[in-house]
């Protein structure tokens, strides 16, 4: 088996008396899509924030290619966020610069990693806008003139243009039209297959997790209660909470 890109062990985090993470362990390898599911308040988003270095755990370690993420210092972590990592926020406005054109949003991340040739940057931006199905004629428009679904696709293009190895996604299809969701699911999956991108996705959408994820982790009250092959966890759930979660989903 290939070595995991990201490995976390023994993660604990308390907010006052509330345990947000309880002895959580997770790893992810290149080309894998891993979904974290569970109800609101189960610790999914907290886990994503701890894994991506945005929040420090009380105890436990997160390693990126063997390097301790929480010990590496702010500058090194920011560099990671610009290069090997990407973060797709639930609200696209948290991941976009609204006063910069669509093309600028995509090109800016390229410039941050050293691209200087204007023609190349614009060409690359255009090719990514095409990948996320945003019409080339909108390249000079501001994101605030875009619909929510287009903004989300633009955020994904902005995140992926630097070809990160791992992308953290926090409810990326929440609040989108079903048709746009489907397009995004297909896009995320083909990018993972074609570019070997690893994706760690937090979602409460079980149906989306089934179609997208290779593996799934079920969280409840800060704890991973069950994990494994996606279709096995969903079709043959072992933990009472997973059985409840799966049986509560409307068949689609």
């Amino acid at each position, binding site marked *: *088996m290939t070595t995991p890109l990201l490995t976390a062990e023994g993660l604990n985090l308390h907010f006052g008396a509330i345990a947000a993470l309880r002895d959580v362990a997770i790893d992810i390898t290149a080309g*894998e899509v891993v979904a974290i599911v569970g109800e609101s308040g189960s610790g999914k988003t907290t886990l994503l924030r701890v894994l991506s270095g945005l929040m420090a755990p009380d105890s436990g370690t997160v390693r990126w290619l063997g390097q301790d993420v929480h010990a590496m210092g702010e500058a090194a972590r920011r560099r990671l966020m610009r290069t090997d990592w990407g973060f797709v926020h639930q609200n696209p406005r948290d991941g976009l610069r609204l006063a910069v054109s669509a093309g600028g949003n995509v090109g800016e991340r390229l410039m941050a990693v050293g691209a200087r040739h204007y023609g190349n940057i614009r060409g690359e931006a255009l090719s990514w806008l095409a990948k996320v199905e945003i019409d080339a004629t909108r390249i000079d428009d501001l994101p605030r003139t875009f619909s929510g679904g287009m903004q989300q696709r633009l955020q994904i293009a902005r995140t992926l243009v630097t070809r990160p190895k791992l992308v953290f996604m926090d409810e990326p299809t929440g609040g989108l039209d079903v048709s746009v969701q489907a397009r995004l699911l297909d896009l995320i999956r083909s990018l993972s297959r074609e570019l070997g991108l690893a994706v760690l996705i937090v979602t409460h959408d079980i149906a989306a997790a089934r179609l997208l994820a290779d593996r799934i982790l079920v969280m409840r009250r800060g704890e991973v209660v069950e994990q494994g*092959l996606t279709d*096995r966890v969903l*079709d*043959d759930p*072992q933990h*009472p909470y997973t059985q409840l979660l799966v*049986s509560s989903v409307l068949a689609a």
Partner: protein
Amino acid sequence: MTPAIRTEGLSKAFTLHLQGGTRIPVLGGVDLAVHPGECVALWGPSGAGKSTLMRCLYGNYGAGAGRIMLRHGAGEIDLVSADPRDVIAARRETLGYVSQFLRVIPRVATRDIVAEPMIARGVPREEALARGTALLHRLNLPERLHGLPPATFSGGEQQRVNLARGFAPGYPVLLLDEPTASLDAANRAVVMALINEAKAAGTAIIGIFHDAEVREAVADRLFEVLPHQDAA
């Protein structure tokens, strides 16, 4: 010759936590071995656990006890205890499954759905699309449907998409759950031919065939699956 897939003492029970922890034993001590080029039909009354056995063989259901040894790559892998990543690799390279239901990302065209597992195995995109298209034609799915997502297709059309997706890659082991359930006589004949060609090419096949004509045409032997209490 070692079997392409074999089970040793395979058992499976379901514990329903939402129903007060009711435990339903389904399979007990199943020993099944299937060799390359052989087609085995699971046989037994409705509710005996044929589908459960199929799902265990694919790793879709976890097993309670026993082993499922699949000849994969240079060695064997136990699907019961394997890491999920290894099960995924085994499904990509070695183990195909044609279920009764087509479950795919919405809005993806039929020809891409059929090509996807071949592309995952490293077949160049154009070749995968060509092979998929040829198989869809053979299964009498009209060309005008190839570019459409299968969500609005009839049951029989969806089943043929599923069959094309399952047969096109040429997996060494193929699981077929009622592959002709929604098909007319002409397409049933195509499926029987596909199964026999796969056998001739060395594929080990395990199937549930309720249709006696199909079963007799393709199965080399029956494997009896009995309700658990009878088997004990």
